[in-house]
């Protein structure tokens, strides 16, 4: 019983490693494209940063000084990229073109292919940004997060949970392609809402209170704002931190359950109309 469990876990691990290696090989094969995408993702946080810097001037806005904004939006830049999901474009395409069938015929859930791709490109990003930030932080004191090593660990863990949450939501919206050919446009709308509610365009504390509570309880703030505010030293209250970690775990569980349900229905639909 235990042995077969270990064996199965080991086999699962080997499959994942093989997929990760492949994902990594694709990232490397397209490293210049990956790099350009990356530069592209800098713009929104930087533009937001400059807007808020000019509004804050020498004073503060909503408790944030210019220096706070710098740290916050550099955090958004890192965490936003680290947790972002774009698998929907592949999935939507796969389902509509019927290439999804190939993955369905193999004895391993297709979601793992996308997950492995996703993780590989995140690894690429992490290997680039950590050294760059380290060097910049050595030169500019303003880029040194005022936090203890433990908070780096918290940030990392919450970032990984956020990555999973955003990945599953993206994949779920992608699966809507089983029913409609508008899955991609639905995702664009979702991303627009996410931009505001997750704290990417401004720290969430700038918004009216009802928006804040909505963003806190739904899976928005916990996917970007939460890790960023821990990294930038804005969020230190252990009770709140515990609450948001709890919310991340609850949402992840709920999303996984919903994912299974949607998958079951989706496959039924797919096998009724054909790919």
């Amino acid at each position, binding site marked *: 019983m235990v042995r077969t469990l270990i064996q199965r876990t080991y086999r699962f691990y080997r499959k994942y490693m*093989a997929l990760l*290696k492949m994902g990594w090989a694709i990232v490397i094969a397209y490293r210049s494209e990956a790099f350009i995408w990356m530069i592209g993702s800098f713009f929104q946080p930087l533009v937001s940063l400059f807007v808020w810097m000019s509004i804050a001037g020498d004073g503060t806005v909503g408790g944030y000084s210019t220096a706070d904004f710098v740290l916050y939006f550099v955090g958004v830049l890192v965490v936003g990229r680290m947790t972002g999901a774009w698998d929907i474009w592949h999935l939507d395409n796969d389902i509509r073109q019927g*290439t999804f069938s190939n993955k369905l015929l*193999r*004895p*391993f859930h297709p979601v793992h292919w996308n997950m492995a791709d996703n993780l590989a490109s995140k690894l690429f990003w992490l290997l680039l940004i950590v050294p760059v930030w380290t060097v910049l932080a050595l030169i500019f004191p303003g880029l040194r997060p005022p936090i203890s090593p433990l908070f780096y660990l918290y940030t990392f863990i919450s970032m990984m949970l956020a990555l999973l949450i955003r990945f599953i939501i993206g994949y779920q919206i992608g699966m809507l392609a089983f029913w409609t050919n508008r899955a991609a446009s639905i995702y664009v709308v979702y991303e627009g809402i996410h931009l505001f509610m997750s704290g990417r365009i401004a720290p969430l504390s700038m918004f009216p209170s009802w928006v804040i509570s909505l963003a806190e309880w739904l899976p928005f703030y916990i996917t970007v704002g939460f890790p960023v505010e821990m990294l930038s030293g804005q969020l230190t209250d252990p009770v709140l931190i515990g609450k948001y970690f709890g919310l991340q775990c609850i949402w992840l569980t709920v999303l996984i359950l919903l994912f299974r349900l949607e998958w079951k229905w989706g496959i*039924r639909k797919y096998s*009724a*109309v*054909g790919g």
Partner: protein
Amino acid sequence: MIKVEDLRKYYKVHVREAGFLSSLKSLFLREFRTVKAVDGISFEIPEGQIVGFLGPNGAGKTTTMKMLTGLLHPTSGKIHVAGYIPFQQKNAFKKRISLVMGQKSQLVWDLPASETFLIHKEIYEIPDREYKQQLDDLVDLLDLHGLLEKPVRQLSLGERMKCELAAALLHRPDIVFLDEPTIGLDVNMQESVRRFIGEYNRYRKATILLTSHYMADVSALCERVMVINRGLLLYDGSIRELIARYAPYKRIQLTFSHEPDLRMLAQIVGGTDRIKQAGPLTVEVEVERERVSEISSNLLSHFPLSDLTIEEPPMEAVISRAFASAPDQNENANKEGFD
């Protein structure tokens, strides 16, 4: 190995007309039409047999294949493949089958094929030694030397197809579905893919169902053929019998050393309508199968011939004759399908 009973697959298709007004109309009034892609077919395929699945585009071949592999859920009817019910999509079932679609690639486009192979090794849980053995065999049989290290997008169509086949067969499936495996390939490449399929069938004792537009594929590989059209099975039996039934004639090609007396020729073969003049000195005649040897010896003794060849009519002609003679019962059924 494969057992199919009264299999049906109906699709409901939303009828959309072109134009703005009718697209507005379709917002309120949706018209549906039932398409009977597969309309009650039954057959059995024993272990180790290669069966050719023939039919024009849209006959229901691919739909049947998709139901056999579990991608599609049948509207009604029973399917058993290797003791499994395909649409339950069990992993143990997936490890025993393979589907190769000539028009859809399963290789990772941007990477060498060897990368996809390694993924398959893990996903299908192929032990190291078995993997090495199988890979060596496939490289030899398909002549893949030097192809596996190139990114797939740089391969030619034929080279890619050979890699597709290798990827699909790494886990040694004993049931293989090939949907147009030679489509778009040149004659040499078709020939080598064909030889490989025969080889795999022999050494793995694999059951193979093959669709193709190229009759050469079918007549070279399959003793048994199933002909399907409009979702109905029109014929299931040996190729030889198919030909005997739908092609009672053979063709004799004659080349004369000087201009022949056509009247006498007509007398021997049994009518002027049997004769087709292909050139000043070459003529094609159609004769009944049973009379071929009698007529050719008559021709040889009466005419100065420089060449005489006897040919089977092309499979295409046989098949189209089979379709033409089929009852059109499905036509009406389709019309009643409006609702």
